[in-house]
């Protein structure tokens, strides 16, 4: 469909100042660009989990599967294997895919499935009104940890590099031009693309004053170098005071799961004949 309004008329319920607006706006611009380039949005599918991020499924006027908490990626895997011609984009939350559905994230990276996973990483549960997530800093005071957390955050970029992701990037919702390039780069990458998006939660973790002075662009880095990517990914541990690099950490071409699993389409008459053949071989 050409010229469709990309934003629906569903009432938006994100808090004023929420970083999700930046992500939605960025995705809208990317989709508009893709359409201008002659790609049909009919072939794009958005899969979301459950959480504040996931409302984007209601707000974008494209095919969508509004899934369960933590379960974007297995749904996306089924869709991509069923129809490899589709462009499949997952919008996940940090509680969503770093806690509830971490296993699926690791396995999608391991398989190098050709989908794009962007994590709306606000480092707090918003929709359930403020609990710590796997990327909240040590000592984060949330409703379930009023005295502060007793565990360090993990570094999702390190996890993704260790698991086999072939496109690993980090963006920030207050750097929208760069974010657009990172997400579009992930969509265009043939393989598993992962973009951790540092996102402001206006209500429960308004961390702009922390991020803005610390972020910098990964300009002097060759994303083809895996070991260098690992080193750069470790500069900031999602906890301390270090500078926070933004950009593409790693990019490589490897065969994808969907290419390897490609199945020749078969008509039912042929399948029925195969069934009869197997049964008669058991005589």
């Amino acid at each position, binding site marked *: *469909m050409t010229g*469709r309004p990309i934003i*629906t008329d*569903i009432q938006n319920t994100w808090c004023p100042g929420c970083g999700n607006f930046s992500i939605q706006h960025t995705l809208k611009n990317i989709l508009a660009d893709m359409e201008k380039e002659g790609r049909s949005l*009919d*072939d794009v*599918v958005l*899969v979301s989990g*459950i959480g504040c991020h996931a*409302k984007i*499924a*209601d707000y974008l*006027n*494209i*095919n*969508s*599967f*509004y*899934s*369960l908490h933590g*379960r974007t990626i*297995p*749904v*996306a*895997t*089924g*869709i*991509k*294997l*069923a*129809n490899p*011609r*589709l462009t499949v984009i997952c919008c996940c939350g940090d509680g969503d895919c770093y806690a509830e559905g971490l*296993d*699926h994230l690791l*396995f999608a990276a391991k398989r190098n499935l050709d989908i794009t996973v962007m994590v709306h990483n606000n480092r707090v549960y918003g929709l359930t009104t403020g609990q710590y997530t796997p990327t909240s800093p040590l000592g984060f005071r949330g409703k379930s940890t009023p005295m502060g957390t007793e565990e360090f955050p993990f570094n999702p970029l390190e996890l993704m590099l260790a698991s086999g992701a072939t496109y690993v990037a980090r963006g920030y919702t207050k750097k929208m031009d760069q974010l657009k390039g990172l997400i579009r780069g992930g969509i265009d990458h043939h393989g598993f693309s992962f973009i951790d998006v540092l996102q402001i939660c206006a209500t429960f973790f308004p961390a702009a004053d922390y991020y803005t002075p610390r972020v910098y662009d990964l300009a002097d880095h060759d994303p083809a170098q895996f070991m260098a990517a690992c080193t750069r990914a470790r500069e900031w541990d999602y906890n301390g005071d270090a500078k926070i690099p933004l950009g593409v950490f790693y990019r490589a071409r490897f065969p994808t799961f969907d290419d390897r*699993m490609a*199945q*020749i*389409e*078969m008509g*039912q008459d*042929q*399948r*029925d004949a*195969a*069934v*009869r*053949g*197997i*049964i*008669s*071989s*058991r*005589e």
Partner: protein
Amino acid sequence: MKELSVLIGGKAGDGINSAGAMVAQLLGHMGYHIYLYFDYPSLIRGGHNFAVIRGAGTSIGTCREKVDFLLALNQETVQRHRDHMNPGAAIIFNADLVKGEGQGVPVTSILHEEQAPAIMGNSALIGGFAKAAGIPWETVEAVFRSHIPKGTELNLKVARKAYDLLSTVHPVEPCNSPGLPLLSGNEAIGLGLAMGGLEAYVSYPMTPSSSILHFLAEEKEKLGITVVHPENEISVVLMALGFAYAGKRSAVGTSGGGFCLMTEGLSLAGMAELPLVFVVSQRTGPSTGLPTYTGQSELQFVLTAGQGEFPRLIVAPGDAEEALYWSAVAMNIAWKFQVPAFILPDKTLSEGSYSVNSTSIPPVKREDPGTADLGSRYKRYTDTPAGISPLAYPGAKEAVVKVNSYAHDEAGYTTEEADMVDLMTRKRLRKWDGLIAEMEGYPQVNSSGHAGTSAAMLCWGSTRGVCREVAGTLGLRVVQPVVLAPFPMTALNAALNGVTTVICVEENATGQLATLAERHGIAIHKKVLRHDGRPFTYESLLARMKEVLP
């Protein structure tokens, strides 16, 4: 009735299942209907495994406790099963490992003479058995040529050596059935799903469902299906729903524990109205229970699994023929109504093998949901009188296909509006009515035995075979609902017409079908239950029935 039973036993790892299948094929080629029961502990190597192969003149689905031939690959087999032999039974054993009465097959020296690898040792025993049973050599040769594609000639030489060494002690009379194909219940389920249009099978290994995964993975190119083994059962069900959303007919397979993990996905299928077939093959529970033994304790779980209220189909086939037919039906119904559909076998059916007359299976409809070609006017959850919305898949021109786990409106957008929630709940639940009417067009309830009698055995799933034999002896009726949801009230009442004593036979501890039937106003007078992981045999059920009959 002509009939005979063969028990073959040895250590786990001895290839008892495949040797049992060869014996079954030999008897099949002699004109017998076959049932094969495979008993093994949850071990890879070392524990005692055995298979009982029974041949009879008519279709069967159970074992007898006494056998006519004992094939012993180890001493333990003779010790354990010595008391389970009919008068005049023949013992054939591996003379290298077993001491005993009967005929020994010098396996090691035969293999040495033929310079054959150890893996061919079972061919020697099968050759020896064939001679002891008086099975013509041409039959042995035909079976080996059909079913041992690799190293056929050498296997035949090994078998022939043993055939020539042994003498016929218990000649098996040829029987009259045409040689029928032999399928395990799980193979029949896989093939039935393929008949129903299966395009993707997603499963995480769990006994006793795993052999569906293995079978379909082996045959995926022939059948044109994608087979995926993901990281866990949560992923399994969500992946399969992704396939369904994109327009591919998919199924998942597991057992009770794995199905626990799938319940959030099941509820999503109900809310998002995505068609999906679940195969839940039951074993002894609760929890890890007895992984390799049977049970019928998931009926109530599957009936109510998943949060919220939504329609579902549950079928429990009783043998491989029914598994073939009803698996195809389940797929068709799932897609016609956009609901989850369950196939509920148990270990006895899944891993037992049966003679299958596939020509007697009614043709299965494959009602294509069609693709709604409405362009930008398309709404995934359009309300209709039947509650069934037209389907479109992502990629359809100008359509925006939105499915949603939240309460949603017709276009698939999240809603919390009371009127819309009410409307869509009614839409989903209206499918129950259509489903009830639809299933009345299928043979939902099997009834057999003595129509004039006032006592009936009520059973479901794999106990169908044993109940029919016991009912034949006792002059009772057998009523076996295959469809368990929606509950086939009309057909069941018709089948029980004139019955004043209903005896429910189940392999669980509480009587789950009895509970279900009573909830629908059907009086259950007695329950005969077994819950030790072993299937009823003819003798054990006959004895239990005699205790409860008036």
